[in-house]
């Protein structure tokens, strides 16, 4: 399946791009993270500690166990610092 992947803040900076389209068979967010981290060092550096990351599927916060079936957009970012 084709997924739009978005990166924000230092995740974006480490990976070096704000978004990309990925073709993947990953079943869950964690599967996708493993797939991405295996690509290149800059991905490995971004995903080295997922406890420091947050994930949203189709613009709704979720967790790393969440299934990807039906998803169109997955975003990775550090804890938010709004307000």
């Amino acid at each position: 399946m084709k997924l739009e992947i978005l990166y924000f803040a230092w995740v974006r900076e480490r990976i070096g791009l704000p978004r990309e389209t990925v073709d993947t068979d990953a079943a869950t967010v964690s599967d996708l993270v493993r797939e991405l981290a295996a690509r290149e060092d800059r991905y490995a550096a971004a995903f080295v500690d997922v406890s420091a990351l947050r994930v949203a599927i189709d613009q709704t916060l979720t967790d790393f166990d969440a299934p990807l079936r039906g998803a169109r957009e997955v975003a990775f970012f550090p804890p938010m610092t709004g307000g």
Partner: protein
Amino acid sequence: MTVRLLDTAFDPGAETTAFTAAQSGAGGIVTFCGVVRDSAQGKLDRMEIEHYPGMTERALTDIRDEAMARWPLTGAMILHRHGTLRPGETIMMVATAARHRADAFAAAEFLMDYLKSRAPFWKKEVTSAGADWVAARDCDEAALDRWTR
């Protein structure tokens, strides 16, 4: 508009006046403004605020709707900037109005706690010592607990 994402400065005084004028039956109005202050890391040149277009608007609207559902408010407003801000500029503002002050205070604190940790904004401080992403504070995450008990 009760939820606004802004890429330029706004005037909290004028917003307070307009919000107050729009309330009917309110006895108390609470506002909170967040301001860019100097960094612990050195003299702050600017703050850059990144956000997640699409998700941000949805998150702000959901947080406001939740506050309106939880307390008997006559109104609630959220304004939040993104882009480049200078020291002293206002980052964001919430305003709440209710018949009794306790509801307006509780709703304003609720809005702030959710904005801090659940709205997709990320702050970067650019100082004389370099640029750094602002770390989330544990106490901000902990502050959410009081609304879920």
